[in-house]
């Protein structure tokens, strides 16, 4: 035995296996990471059953079981319930010792009410009121509630349309006029007529504002219905329907209904605005901001990267200098992203942005327009961060195009530029694309430089909308990665926000991984193609 052991070790097989173990460990870590994100994120949208537990001391709690804890492999010792009702009880979650529960029930009539404020409400619908007077109670209330919900949703949409549409419009015009006035007043007497015109315009806008406001009040006054929910703790809570986003009865739902609910929740997540300081609702503005930022960055980085690569490979005289530049550019890819952020702050925001403000937005100073973080600066910073990726990929592609291809074109009487444009560029396009996709993937996941150059936790408006000039490059924006950081680490109620963050994480991960897979696929196809050409 001993000698065979020694022989085994001398053969080195155990070490080979140990090395394999290291790989297995690395792969297991990836699997664990993905599993943790998937389980936490996908479970978030599932309408979990509400357990009504009676405790030994007679109290009744109702909530969704979100976590269980026990000794490793042992029995469950305690469970974590999401009891919601944040405005009634102080905590969203409670831990309950398993042994303290004397009875469990899953009453089908329990509803979960998603509200615009204070998070969900869990309880039983007691009655529905109109202008404070009950119109339906008990079992009838549920039906009455369901019947009124679509109208309430429509009303909420209308209110929002007035708020962001008419009123926002007037506000913006007023702001513009005020700035114009400020500029005119500086000019003094010569602009008196213009000043008066502007003031008349302002007065007109004031009236418009009042009209919109009264319409808003009128709309709000229509929302008269309210629902009264009795919670497990025995308290009644009246919620105006205007605040109700959705109602579901998890214990009464069939599996298809649950699936449908799940799908709508996922849709809400990707298409809706956030609520409750980002801990509820959707992440649409963050998705939009991320996509927008990546697009602007791509528009900048692609031509610049390609021109730089073409210069380095096609036009520059190859020598020690170009090699040094090439190494420097390559190494820039390894410079920490935060350093690029710092550069963005010092150069783009304060130097360039500050100058733009002094030249073109002097009226609104000292409030900065471009002299503060914004989507343009963030995109430019990320463009700088990712340009080495594009240059390296393009250069690699250029190096792979055989010299004879270029000679073939030149021998036909084409100029160098014609050769570059018509033969080399189309041939290198897939490489450029690969580099660009990798750059996009990197940009989509990058957060640190954005924190310095224009990302915010909650942006009042999207950087692209229907108002001229449509694309608002100076606006701050939301970003999925920053959303994760902000909600996960800066939010007051991290426990309640956690599933939301996991969902956002999954979304970001899917985007980044898909982009990478696409790039890897493209690159391997490319390599195969060049291999056949080489034959």
């Amino acid at each position: 035995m001993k000698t065979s052991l020694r022989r085994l070790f001398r053969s080195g097989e155990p070490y080979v296996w140990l090395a394999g173990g290291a790989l297995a460990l690395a792969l297991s870590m990836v699997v664990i990471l993905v599993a943790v994100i998937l389980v936490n994120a996908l479970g978030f949208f599932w309408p979990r059953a509400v357990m009504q537990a009676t405790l030994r001391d007679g109290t009744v709690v109702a909530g969704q079981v979100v976590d269980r804890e026990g000794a490793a492999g042992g029995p469950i010792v305690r469970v974590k319930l999401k009891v919601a009702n944040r405005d009634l009880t102080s905590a969203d979650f409670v831990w309950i010792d398993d042994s303290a529960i004397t009875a469990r029930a899953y009453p089908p009539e329990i509803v979960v009410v998603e509200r615009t404020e204070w998070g969900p409400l869990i309880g039983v619908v007691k009655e529905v009121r109109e202008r404070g007077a009950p119109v339906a109670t008990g079992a009838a209330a549920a039906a009455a509630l369901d019947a009124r919900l679509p109208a309430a949703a429509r009303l909420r949409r209308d209110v929002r349309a007035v708020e962001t549409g008419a009123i926002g419009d007037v506000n913006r015009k007023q702001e513009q006029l005020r700035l114009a006035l400020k500029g005119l007043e500086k000019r003094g007497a010569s602009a008196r007529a213009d000043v008066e015109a502007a003031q008349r315009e302002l007065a007109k806008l004031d009236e418009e504002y009042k009209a919109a406001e009264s319409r808003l009040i009128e709309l709000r006054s229509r929302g008269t219905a309210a629902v009264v929910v009795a919670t497990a703790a025995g308290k009644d809570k009246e919620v105006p329907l205007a605040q109700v986003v959705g109602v579901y009865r998890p214990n009464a739902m069939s599996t298809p209904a649950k699936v449908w609910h799940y799908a709508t929740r996922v849709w809400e997540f990707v298409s809706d605005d956030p609520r409750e300081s980002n801990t509820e609702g959707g992440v649409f503005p963050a998705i939009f901001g991320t996509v927008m930022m990546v697009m602007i960055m791509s528009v900048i980085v692609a031509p610049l990267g390609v021109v730089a690569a073409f210069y380095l490979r096609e036009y520059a005289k190859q020598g020690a200098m170009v090699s040094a530049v090439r190494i420097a550019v390559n190494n820039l890819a390894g410079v920490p992203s935060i350093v690029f952020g710092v550069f963005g702050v010092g150069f783009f925001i304060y130097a360039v942005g500050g100058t733009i403000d002094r030249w073109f937005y002097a009226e609104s100073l000292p409030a900065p327009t471009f002299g503060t973080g914004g989507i343009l600066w963030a995109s430019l910073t990320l463009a700088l961060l990712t340009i080495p990726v594009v240059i390296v990929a393009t250069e690699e592609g250029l190096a792979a195009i055989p010299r004879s291809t270029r000679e073939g074109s030149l021998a036909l009487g084409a100029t160098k530029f014609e050769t570059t444009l018509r033969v080399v560029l189309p041939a290198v396009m897939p490489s450029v694309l690969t580099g660009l996709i990798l750059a996009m993937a990197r940009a989509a996941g990058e957060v640190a430089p954005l924190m310095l150059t224009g990302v915010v936790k909650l942006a009042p408006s999207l950087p692209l909308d229907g108002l001229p000039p449509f694309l608002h490059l100076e606006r701050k924006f939301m970003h999925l990665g920053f959303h994760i950081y902000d909600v996960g680490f800066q939010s007051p109620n991290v426990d309640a926000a956690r599933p939301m963050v996991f969902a956002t994480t999954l979304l970001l991960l899917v985007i980044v991984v898909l982009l990478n897979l696409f790039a890897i696929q493209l690159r391997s196809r490319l390599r195969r193609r060049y291999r056949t050409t080489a034959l």
Partner: protein
Amino acid sequence: MLEPAMIEIERLSLWYADKRALNDISMTIPKQRITAFIGPSGCGKSTLLRCLNRMNDLVDGVRIEGVIRIGGTDIHDAGLDVTELRKRVGMVFQKSNPFPKSIFENVAYGPRILGVRSRADLDGIVERSLRAAALWEEVSDRLHDTALGLSGGQQQRLCIARAIAVEPDVLLMDEPCSALDPIATAKIEELMLELRSSYTIVIVTHNMQQAARVSDDTGFLLLGDLVEFGATRGIFTNPGDKRTEDYITGRFG
């Protein structure tokens, strides 16, 4: 040599940096005939060929002395642009180098550069060129497939079609069959003989049988010197120089 001269080379010398690669070469290549350059590797035959359409311009540190006239024009004349020269002097390379485009686009590339825009004209040129290169029958039904899918011999014929699409006066061929199998080689050789009536062809080959089979005239180069130049039959049957004889009979290193 009764035919009028197409290419006249006078006292041509060429240096790569400090290394002399061609040594005081003078020759006259007649019109509408096939002229072959033969010689051992590194003798300068490809360099000489690449002088004729100034492909050597692309190499750093090349210096040329002497005069080359094609169709009576000095190709180093300041008034003559190199792109114009290359339009007149087409070239086929040792390794086929189709562009990563479709077959049609490969052939249409040259005419397009020269300003032919009309689709009908291009269609005509592509068809004529491919027919001339004896490739039309094989590819007419897949003109818009990628050229990289063709076999080696087809690719080389495509390169010939591409070269003749711009209607050059001279066609330079730099060991066009070295990467091909015998059947493909035979097709290219057959093609060369057909093209002879329209073009002046200069071919570099290391294959003496090929030179003997297709060329009218042959020049033998050795270490940058033109050792002997004359009618192929004469060179092969009755070489005037001992070195030529050694090379042809295979006694050469």
